[in-house]
Each structure stands twice: as C-alpha cells, then as structure tokens.
C-alpha cells in the first residue's frame, strides 16, 4: 500500500509537470482526488488495514493528498499566468494612434483676452461694471466734460440714433452711471462693445471692444495709476514688460497720458511689429477730471481717482500676432480653432 501511494504521488506529479491547459488540470484533479479518484479509492480500502497500520498509512495518504493539492495549485497558477500573458500579448495596441474625443469648443480670442484682463483686475479687488450700448448723449459726452460743440466730438466719429441718443463711442458712460449709484471707494473695470464711424479694414471696425477702468478714493495719486498700469501690463504681456507714459490730452482726465508697452515682438530693441520704435501704444489713461467726478456726484475736493481705457482688439491682435482685424468678426472655424 505504501508503495502504491508513493507511485501515485510520483505519477501524478510527473503528469502535472506536463499539463498545458486548465481543462486537463481539472481532469487530473478529478482522476486523483475526485470521488472515484485513485487516491480516494485507496483511502476507501483502508478499512482492511490493521489498527497499527491504519494511522501510519492514513498519515501517509494525507501527505500524498496535500502534496497533490499543492502541485495542482502550483500548476494552476502557472497555467493562469501563461494564459494571462498570452492574452496581454494578444491585446497590444498601437498607442501612437490618435485619441478619441468630442473636443471642447474654443473661446473666441477676444473672450480669452477679456477673461485675462478681468482676472488681473479682479485679483486687484476690482468689480466688473456694465451698461447700455445704446446710450444717452449725456453719459457719453456731457458728463465726461465734453459739452455739445466741443471739438473732441468731431474726432469721436459717433453714431447717432437721435439728438440725445448715441451708440456709445467708449465704455466711459458706465463709469459715470456707476459713480452715481455708488459711493467711493470705487474700483471697477467696464468691458464692452463700443461704436465708432470707421469703415471696416485690416485695423478698423465700426464695432469693437474696450475695457475701461476707474478707481476713486481718498488720496488716489498719479503714482497709483502708474503702478496699476504697470501691474496690468506685466500681467497680460509678461513680467519683463515695461510701460511708458506720454503726456496727452483727453477731456475726461487731467493730467492725461497715452501709455506704451515695450514691444512684445522684440522687447524694446525695435522690429517690424513696433515699426522700429520698441514701444507699442495700448491705452489711454489719466487722473479723473474734477468735472467728471462732479457729474458722478463725487466731491473732487475730498476724492481723487484715475481712469484708463484700452482696445481689446488691439491687444488681442498683438498677443496672438493676428494681422487683420476682420478675422475676428468673420469667424472662420479654422481661425477659431487656433485659440
């Protein structure tokens, strides 16, 4: 009996070595350990053994069973791994093929730039104020220290709806409306569509976008204006950007300035973009004229403030190297997809 058990163990283990499929393993398991399996049969025949032999052979038979089970488990692990490896091998992908995605839509470049501008000023504690595009002449001009028949009105090339209603030529009316409804401290930017009677060409459009800013508080200085514009220019054009203020005249600010930034093309050494100047004009600014503060119901003896305004198209074109303004309103998808 002892020899028989040893033979079974040896034979079974040899077979296990050779097995290459899970199904065969299952068959082998049944053949040895199943109800009618060889080992089971032997254990059934143990009744005929003597009481001395029985525990010894019993122990031995148990050892064989454990050895077989371990062998089967090991073989199973081997086969499963082989199977998994084969499957993995069959599933190799060409990962260089393009990805599948519906694709996000794009922000229009003007929105992208407007969003950047808004973020910079919100970070400095500004609110975003809005107002009508079809606006009263009063808010568009008179409240901004440009009375009727003021020569500056000719230069504005304003679209009129009636004698007292215009398409706003700048977003400044929003500043006056805001001042009338709020008491200082005031920090706002006013983005929006504006209108001027310019025929469409590569650099002009009768409809375009501006962002203006207004700060009113006690003791606001021209230094604060310079610092704010510097922070903005660095925010939008990069840390290395420098600004330069040139004295200018606007009816609604005094002192007034035109503001240049160091050229984004060459950094200031002169190139085609800046026409060799090294500087590019991007905005107008100044200390709010006392008459404008008064029109907004604010006492210029107590408060001072600064204001600035910029064209969004110009900045957008500069930032992305767009050479024709018409592209912005034509909306060719191949253009829109680039941003």
């Amino acid at each position, binding site marked *: 009996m002892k020899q028989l058990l040893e033979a079974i163990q040896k034979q079974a283990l040899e077979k296990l070595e050779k097995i290459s499929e899970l199904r065969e393993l299952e068959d082998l398991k049944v053949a040895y350990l199943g109800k009618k399996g060889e080992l089971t049969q032997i254990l059934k025949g143990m009744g005929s053994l003597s009481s001395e032999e029985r525990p010894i052979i019993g122990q031995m038979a148990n050892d064989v069973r454990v050895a077989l089970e371990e062998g089967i488990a090991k073989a199973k692990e081997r086969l499963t791994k082989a199977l998994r490896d084969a499957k993995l091998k069959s599933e190799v992908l060409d990962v260089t093929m393009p990805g599948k995605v*519906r694709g*996000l*839509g794009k*922000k*229009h470049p003007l929105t992208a730039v407007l969003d950047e501008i*808004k973020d910079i000023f*919100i970070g*400095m*504690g*500004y*609110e*975003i104020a809005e107002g*009508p*595009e*079809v606006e*009263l002449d009063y808010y568009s001009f008179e409240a901004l220290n440009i009375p009727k*028949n003021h*020569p500056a009105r*000719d230069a504005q090339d304003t*679209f009129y*709806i*009636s004698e007292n*209603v215009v*398409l706003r030529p700048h977003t400044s009316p929003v500043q006056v409306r805001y001042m009338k409804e709020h008491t200082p*401290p005031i*920090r706002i930017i006013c983005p929006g*569509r504006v209108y001027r*009677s310019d025929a469409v060409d590569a650099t002009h*459009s*009768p409809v375009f976008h501006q962002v203006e800013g207004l700060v009113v*508080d*006690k*003791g*606001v*200085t*021209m*230094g*604060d204006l*310079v*610092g*704010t514009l510097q922070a903005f220019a660095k925010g939008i054009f990069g840390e290395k950007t420098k600004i*330069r*203020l*040139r*004295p*200018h*005249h606007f009816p609604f600010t*005094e*002192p*007034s300035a035109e503001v240049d930034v160091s050229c984004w093309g060459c950094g200031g050494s002169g190139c085609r973009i800046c026409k060799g100047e090294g500087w590019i004009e991007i905005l107008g600014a100044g*200390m709010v*004229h*006392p008459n404008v503060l008064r029109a907004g119901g604010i006492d210029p003896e107590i408060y001072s403030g600064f204001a600035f305004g910029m064209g969004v198209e110009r900045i957008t074109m500069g930032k992305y190297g767009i050479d024709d303004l018409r592209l*912005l*309103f034509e*909306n*060719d*998808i*191949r253009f*829109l997809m680039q941003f």
Partner: protein
Amino acid sequence: MKAPVKWLKDYVDISVPVKEYTEAMTMSGSKVEGVEDMGKGIEKVVVGKILSIEKHPDADKLRICKMDIGSETLQIVTGAPNVKEGDYIPLALVGAKLPGGEIKLSKLRGVESYGMMCSIDELNLTRDYLPDAPEYGVYVFSGTPELGADVKDVLDLDQVVEFEITSNRPDCLSIIGLARESAVTLGVPFKKPQVTVKEEAGGNANDYASVEIQAPELCARYAARIVKDVKIEPSPVWMQRRLAAAGMRPINNIVDITNYVMLEYGQPMHAFDLNKIQGSKIIVRTAREGEEIRTLDGQDRKLDTQMLVICDENRPVAVAGVMGGENSEITEGTHTILLESANFKGSSVRITGKKMGLRSEASSRFEKGLDTENVIPALNRCAELIELLGAGKVVRGIIDCNVKPYEKKVMKLEPERINAFLGTDISAQEMIKIFEALEFEVDKEAMTLVPPSFRGDILAFEDLCEEVARFYGYNNIKPSLLTGKETMRGGKTYKQRMEDVITNTMRGCGLNEIYTISFTSPKVFDTINVPADHSMRNAVVISNPLGEDYSIMRTTTLPDMLRVLATNSNRKVPEARLFELAYIYLPVEGQMLPDEKETLTIGLYGGTSDFFELKGIVEELLSSLGIEKAEFKAEQNAFGFHPGRTANLYIDGKMAGTLGEIHPEVAERTECPPRTYVAMLDVQILIDASRTDKQYKQLPRFPAITRDLAIVVRDELYVADLMKAIEQKGGEYLEEVKLFDVYKGAQVPEGMKSVAFSLSFRAPDKTLKDEEVTQAMDRILKNLEKTFGAQLR
C-alpha cells in the same frame, strides 16, 4: 502741424540730434508723428555751371556740355532741352545717390558722361517747393550759387517735424508755440520774437476804415492795419520754401505773408481789398435771413442767422474764420489792403465750417479757441514782413476793437497738494522753475501763479499738476499700487458668473465661440421670412450709418449666425458647432433707450448634428444652470425655422427661446447647408431661473426594479405627453422614465408608432415587492390606453 527745423531754430537753439529732439518733445507732450527729411537719399549732388555746349555727333537729342564744379571741369552728356551756356545746374556726380538710384560713369552713344544734370523730380522735390522749376527738363538755379556747393544747402533742404497737437493746445499750432515748448523741454532759452514796424506810409489807419463788432459774444477782438501801395507779386524764394515745407502752397506775396504769420504765430489772418469794402467799414455780425456770399472757392453759399460774417456797410465780405468772399478778394489791381487779425469764437467757426463743409488751416485753429492777446503781435509781424518784402507801405496805427479784454487769472501755487496728487516729492523751487519757463507769472511771496494768455487750457489745480508732471517726467513718477487704501473684495456679479457657466457649458458641448457685429441691414428680415408687419422689424435706426448694411441695430441674431455658418460652409468646412453670447436691441415705446436683451445663439451643421443634438445641448445648459422647470413645445410658426422640426423652450411658463432646423427655403437663400440647426435663447430668463443652491440627497440604499413598457400609439402624439402621463400615474416609487426606442414600419400599423420606455422604481426605505411594481405598471398602462388609445405591444 508741420514744423521745418530751420524755422524753429529762429526761436530756439536745437543743438541735439533730431532723433533726440523728437523723442524729448514726445515725452513732454508734443507728440512727434514723424520727421520728413527733404534731402533724404540725396548725396554728392552739387552746383555746376555750364561752360560750353556742343552737339552730340551721333544723336540729335543729346548734347555734350563742359561743366565747372569749382574744383574741376567735367564732361556731361544731357538730353535736357532747356539748358544754355552759363546756367547753374544741380549736378549729380559719379557715385552720387538719388532717390531713384546711384549715378555711374556712363557712355551715351559712345560719349562718356561724368554725371547727370537733375530735374526736381530726380531730387524728389515739388514745384510747390521750387516754383521756378520748369515743368520738363532740368532745374536751373536762379542767381549764382557757389560752384561745387551741396545742393541740399543751396536749396535749403530741411528736416520737417510733424507734430500731433492735442485740441487743448492751439498755441502749439504755431512755430513760436512749438519753439517755446522745445525751449522748456530742452532746457534752453526761448528767443522771443522782436518785431518792428516802420509804418512808412504815415497817416492814421483809423482815417481809412473803421471796425464795429455787433456780435461781441462771437468776436472778442478785431484788429486791422492798412497797407498802401501794394505790389502783388510772388513772394521771395525763402518764404515760398518755408510755406511749402510746412505744407502750404505759395500764392502771392500778400497771401503768403498772411499764411506765413498764421504758421509762425498761430493767428489766422485775412487781407481784404480795401477799395472793395463799401463804406470803408468792417462790421462783424451774424448773417441776416436770406443773405448769401460767394466764397473764394467760387461757391455761392447761403448764410443762416447763426453764422458769423464780416461785412461792409452793405453785404457780407467774408465768413468769419472760415473763408473770404470773392467780392473783397485781392487781385492784380489791388493797391490798398485791410489786414484782419481777429479772435472769433471757436464753436461758432466750427459749426459754420461744418455746415459749409469747409475746413482750412485757419478755421481749424479758430475752432480750438485762440488767444486774444496774440492778435496784435501777429498783425505787427504781418506788417513787418510786408515792409521787409517791399509788398506795400504800412499806414501808421492799428484799428483795434477789443470788446472782451483779456483778464489775468490768479491761481494758487500749492506744491504740497500737487505732490500729494501726483504721488511725488518735487521741491517748490523745481515747480517754480517749470512754471517760469512756461511763461507763467509766479509770485513767490504770495505763492500764486498767473498763466500766460496763450494758455487758455490752464483752468484748475489739475492742469497745474499736469504742467509739473510733464516736465518732471511722467516716467519719473514712482509707481505705487493704491498704497494705504482700503482693500476691496472685487469679483463678478451673479449674472457675470452665470454667463461664465453658459460659455463653459457651450464649450463643453464642443461649440466654438463667435463674435458678430451688432449692426444689420433692414433687408435681413425678408431673408428670414419675417412677416411685413412683425414687431421684429421695429429696430433702432442709426441716423448716420456706414451704408444700408449697417443701418439698424439688430433685433435678432439669427441672420448673423446663418451668415457665419454659410461662410464656413462655403469654405468647405465640413462641420460647424458655434455659439455667441451677445445683445439684441429692442425699441421700447415711450423710452429713450432700447431694451438690450442678451441672447445665446447656437448654430450647428454637419457631423452628427440634428435636432436632438441641438436639444441635447440646450438640455445640458439647463442642467448646468440648475433649471428644472423647463418644457419644450412644438412650434409650427417660428419664421426662419422648419415648421415640423422646431420647438419653443418655456421656463416657468415664460417663453425662453426657440430651437430647431432652419427652414429649407431660408437655408437655401442664406447659402447654409440644407440641414442647419439654430437655437436662440433669452439669457436673462435663463439666469433668473438658474439655481446654484444645490442640496445633497442620500444615495439609494435599496435596489431599483426596472420594467420596460412598449406601446403603440398614433404617430402624431408627443412623447413628452406620454411621459408626463406615465409620471402622473407612476406612484411614489417611480424614480425615472427613459425613452429607449421609437419605431415605425413593419408590424406597426400605418399612422401609428411604437414607443418603448424603461421605467425604474425604487423605495427609499425598503426593497420593493414585485406586485407593488406590477400594480403601478397596470395603472400607468390603463391610463395610457384611456387617454391616448395606446395598445400594449
């Protein structure tokens, strides 16, 4: 304002290079637009004298000249017909540079030529600058310039600086004004003009004519001088050249002198033929009803009672500050003139000029408001030049009618307050130095200032700050960031945040953002089939549009979206998914300003786009905005849209927009693809209905039971109505109803459709029993049978 550098140098020493000068002027507020170098590109062109002329042996039209250039004699072959022995000619030597190219030693029909005689074209000059130049042929110098001298010196070829002068500084529309600014900018002395008038004719101007101002509110001062024995002839070359360099055409000595003084002093002048002034009386008044005048350009012009005119006893002889009249014009025969130097109200000149469509160097100066104290100095300069040029004899005295004498304005000088405003630390001495250089009268004891008369722009404290800042240097002001001020919260409003949600959702759905302009043409309403009497045609009309296509403010965004879709389709872009967030403008009865309604417009064609993709995008948006009470209803009459493939969106019973397929007729007319989809939604309604206050609901703890329900109903029934009916009878455990199939065709009778739903039931506190669900399904089915005649399939 064009300022020839040599002219400026009459009044200020500009010793720095021009580039440095223009840079400094720009930074002190006189912006330089550009510098025109009249001698640019001209090198090695000298004065040569023709010693002899011989015929060319092999060419009829060529001649061989010997020319003396001082240092040597050269052989020159020329085709110019207008030269003779003894002429002085500009000669480009071998190696000379001209705007047209370089001059090389050449052979003309076998004869060598060591240079080229130049015409004014070759020197890039005009006959305005050199009026004695022939129309064809080479230029011949008048007089005897030094042989071998550089023609740039001989012809006074100057650099001309073009300044952009802001409207508040009419004093800088003059050589003297710019020289004054230059002096302060460069820190050098300003050479004040010194004028002497000899008044050789004697007599008394007041005996020749009189002046009366009847409209003192429009004319503050009117001064005149009389000049006798006038000889009308061309002005001297130096004057003609300066005028031409500054952009004015020389005419004759008298006109040129008045223009010269206008450019130099900034005070426009006018000369009348005194013999044509009836009654020898100048009356300054507004025009009378029905009066007319023929102006110097030969046009007959109707005058109105707002217009200021210069009249004699009987009739207008000039439109004040705008243009003179033909009836008082100086001509060849003129022998006595009345020189006008006056101050007219800017707005009056501006309006009159605008009405007449006339704008001149003179009127554009008057418009800005001039200095009444400049009237006499300019008149005297004019008289001086007349004497200098021998153009006539000046009568003694000035007729001066000064109805609104200049009053000095005393202002406080408050250095500390100026520093506090600018954020600077400039000493009082430095400020005083700036003001004195600018010709302010400074009282250091009383700390007061009186601005000079020509600085009408200096009115308030802030104006003084600007003067200090300009010359201290804007860019020397130390930047600060609202130091010490209260910090503020800032941020976006609820509306602005919801607009961001809308934009982000649209992009998430794969839509690209577009921008279209707000103007449109009234014709677009026909294009999209808007009925003739529809209120949408009532638009805000622009009174001065850039043509019909841009003549009204849009009342719908549909045509603009269709135009953009068509543009892309025409350019063979296979698929478009677009949106725009923009305003339409709806007039409101009894209101000055229209209602500006923000509109979200979505447009699709190509790819997977169909009605349900469009609707899916709208549903996604509603979900992003937390809007639950939304309903889509079929709409057969939305113009521009397909009658069977269009829905209106209702939120809380309010019509919030329209979405659907574009009507094939409209698609064809607008060149859009046949299957084009557009939605237009009212953003305000969306924002009003939006909810951001989300609340967590416990996750389900018990399993759901799902049942399918397939029924056959009449084709025209709406799925939404069926779903509503299912939800009504579903009981408390019905969690969700989903449509999963709609089928027409085999096994479904004609005019019917099979609709299949998947229903899921769940209880929050227990596992549902089968029979509970079965009961609910029976209720639902019975109701569908009863209400819609549905049959279980």
